[in-house]
């Protein structure tokens, strides 16, 4: 095995600007498509077992010190479609990282293990008998240790978190500190723009440099266009390397007997569809779920400064189980740009009044256990995210908004802004049913954001009903694996990064 060469900072990445030839031919034991939660973990686990690993990332390499802490700039440089990725009706913004490190670079650091009742659903409904709590526990233990996952300490709970905790206690609701993958949080509140001082334990500063230390090669600006297979076995990929001005720098072919697809739950199915692979079940791209979330803001009598301190501090799990509602509430900070778009306080003076009092606002993020009703499609030229909140899920969304409103009021808020396209303000308990009950499940009525797309290459025992086996290998193509949130057969209610890390670890260990 070659010498391990760990780098104290930065990351050795081949970028478009490094390319001097119009075509590159590479060989590897494993080619990994995507450098986010699944790809980075798989790359490290395989590289440390002596495999020759190449990681291909469509997005750019942006070193931590180049992060600007300006959300609009970050959307442009770090997010898929420059932050403009939406569903086909334009009322759901689907935010995914599109840079080396993927969404782990721009997430809020929140860590949950897969809930037991979700694993039980997977065992019962998808034949994933081996994915038990006991089976996965060692993987969770390991990734949590590697990524410094810990309960938020008191100093990591910002003013808005303390308010929410007090309100939950008043209502008798279960409220807990969130776990986050962070070392010595700098409390800047700029998580969604990337952590400039490498405190967030994203893939950019953990598994990717560890993979490189074990010999893995990373190519940024490199979009895989096709997965190659012969005789039912994966043989590699074809890709295009693109300069930052949009011009093509080179084409690339990687020959490898194993391909790990980890481009995320939107891009991974598109790549399979473009390649015409692993779709005997016709399930590729189907079963899209995304935890459509809302940021319910409220005004308090005392300054909160929602941008100060750690972005996410505590959460309410009182309603987590589907039998009790099927949603969680997380206290969430935000900046001015997000604030200007998350509610409809009116225009002119009411809007200015709302914004001018920004420091008095606090937010609650709602996450619901949505059904897998969406679909990712590729029409030959462009992708389509076909997702509308289903009528089955709309009551859950309403319950989540109502609970958020109650919690804000119990926490001392004087006005709660329903995140709808029309002006809906709740000032007391009596307003809740009218303002939230009056919502309709129509396009452009709720201001939804998804940070957690999932489910589009789902795992299952039945090759007619699923794309991937429990070990991550596709049913149809030997040597072709999926290791991202596409795998998840159902939405998991909670933030999925730890689930993806654990599954990717398990998959890579099986591969090695």
């Amino acid at each position, binding site marked *: 095995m070659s010498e391990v060469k760990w780098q104290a*900072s930065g990351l050795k990445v081949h970028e478009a600007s490094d390319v001097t030839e119009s075509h590159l031919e590479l060989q590897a034991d494993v080619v990994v498509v995507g450098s986010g939660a699944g790809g980075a973990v798989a790359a490290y686990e395989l590289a440390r077992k002596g495999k020759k690993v190449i990681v291909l990332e469509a997005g750019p390499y942006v070193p931590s010190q180049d992060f600007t802490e300006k959300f609009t700039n970050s*959307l442009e440089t770090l997010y898929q479609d420059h932050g403009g990725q939406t569903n086909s009706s334009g009322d759901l913004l689907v935010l995914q990282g599109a840079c080396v490190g993927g969404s782990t670079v721009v997430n809020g650091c929140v860590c949950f293990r897969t809930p037991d009742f979700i694993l039980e659903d997977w065992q019962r409904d998808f034949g994933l008998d081996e994915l038990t709590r006991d089976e996965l526990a060692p993987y969770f233990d390991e990734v949590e240790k590697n990524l410094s996952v810990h309960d938020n300490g008191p100093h990591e709970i910002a003013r808005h978190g303390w308010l929410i905790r007090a309100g939950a206690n008043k209502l008798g609701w279960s409220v807990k500190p969130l776990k986050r993958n962070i070392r010595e949080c700098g409390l800047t509140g700029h998580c969604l723009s990337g952590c400039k001082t490498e405190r967030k334990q994203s893939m950019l500063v953990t598994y990717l440099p560890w993979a490189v230390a074990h010999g893995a090669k990373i190519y940024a600006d490199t979009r895989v266009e096709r997965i190659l297979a012969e005789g039912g076995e994966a043989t590699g990929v074809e890709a295009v390397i693109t300069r930052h001005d949009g011009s093509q720098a080179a084409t690339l072919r990687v020959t490898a007997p194993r391909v790990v697809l980890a481009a995320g739950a939107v891009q991974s199915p598109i790549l399979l569809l473009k390649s015409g692979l692993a779709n005997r079940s016709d399930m590729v791209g189907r079963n899209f779920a995304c935890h459509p979330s809302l940021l319910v803001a409220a005004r308090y009598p005392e300054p909160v400064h929602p941008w100060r301190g750690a972005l996410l501090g505590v959460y309410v799990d009182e309603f987590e189980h589907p039998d009790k509602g099927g949603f969680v509430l997380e206290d969430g900070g935000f900046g001015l740009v997000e604030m200007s778009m998350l509610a409809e306080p009116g225009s002119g003076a009411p809007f200015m009044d709302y914004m001018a009092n920004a420091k008095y606002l606090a937010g609650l993020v709602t996450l619901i256990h949505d059904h897998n009703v969406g679909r990712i499609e590729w029409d030959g030229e462009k992708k389509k995210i076909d997702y509308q909140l289903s009528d089955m899920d709309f009551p859950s969304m309403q319950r989540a908004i109502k609970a958020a409103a109650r919690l804000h009021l119990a926490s001392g808020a004087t006005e709660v802004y329903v995140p709808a396209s029309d002006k809906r303000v709740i000032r007391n308990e009596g307003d809740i049913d009218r303002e939230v009950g009056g919502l309709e499940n129509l396009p452009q009525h709720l201001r939804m954001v998804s940070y957690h797309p999932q489910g589009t290459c789902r795992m299952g025992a039945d090759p007619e009903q699923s794309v991937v086996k429990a070990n991550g290998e596709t049913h149809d193509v030997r040597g072709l694996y999926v290791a991202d949130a596409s795998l998840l057969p159902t939405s998991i209610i909670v933030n999925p990064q730890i689930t993806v890390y654990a599954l990717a670890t398990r998959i890579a260990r099986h591969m090695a």
Partner: protein
Amino acid sequence: MKNNNRARMPGYLAGLEPLSRRGFLRTSVLAGAALSSGCSSLFGRREAPETLQYHSLTPDEVEVITRLTEVMLPAESYGLPSSTTVVPTVENIDMMAQRLPKQTRDLMGLGIWVFNNRPMVSFKFSKFTSLSDEKALAYVDAMQEGTFFERGLMTTLKALVALNYWRDERTWPGLEYHGPVTEMWGVRRLGNAPLPRA
């Protein structure tokens, strides 16, 4: 560009439902695009609005967006920099429009045109730019509470305006928003995490 859009626009689009569902839905993607490319390069832009040229927006579009900015963001009343004479809100939108893909830019023009020409019976068929402050606000509110076509278009245009005002650093101190802090606070970098122990 907008004139071309007008010329291509089928007659039925000038009626009460001037935007097709398909066209409208694509227009609504602008809400996302508003967060994207062109906007991001403008954070440092500080020129006085009168010194700037418009490169993408047509004079008619500038008039509509300027009027919307005036009625939507009466910032000076709140001790904040003017949204039209200090912060170059409309110029920021113009810069954003320059960097939009042609199809999206065309739809933006269509959306602005429809918005301006939408006021019907309740507003005596006047264009938005001809309405008084009071009527203009009433029109915006009516759109915001209208059909999903209307509220989607209104949400998009309001997002364009708000985003391109509050992205300017001069709007931050008045709200006690700190903006980037790492360098100001001297937060030290930690570098890469050490390799896990086997």
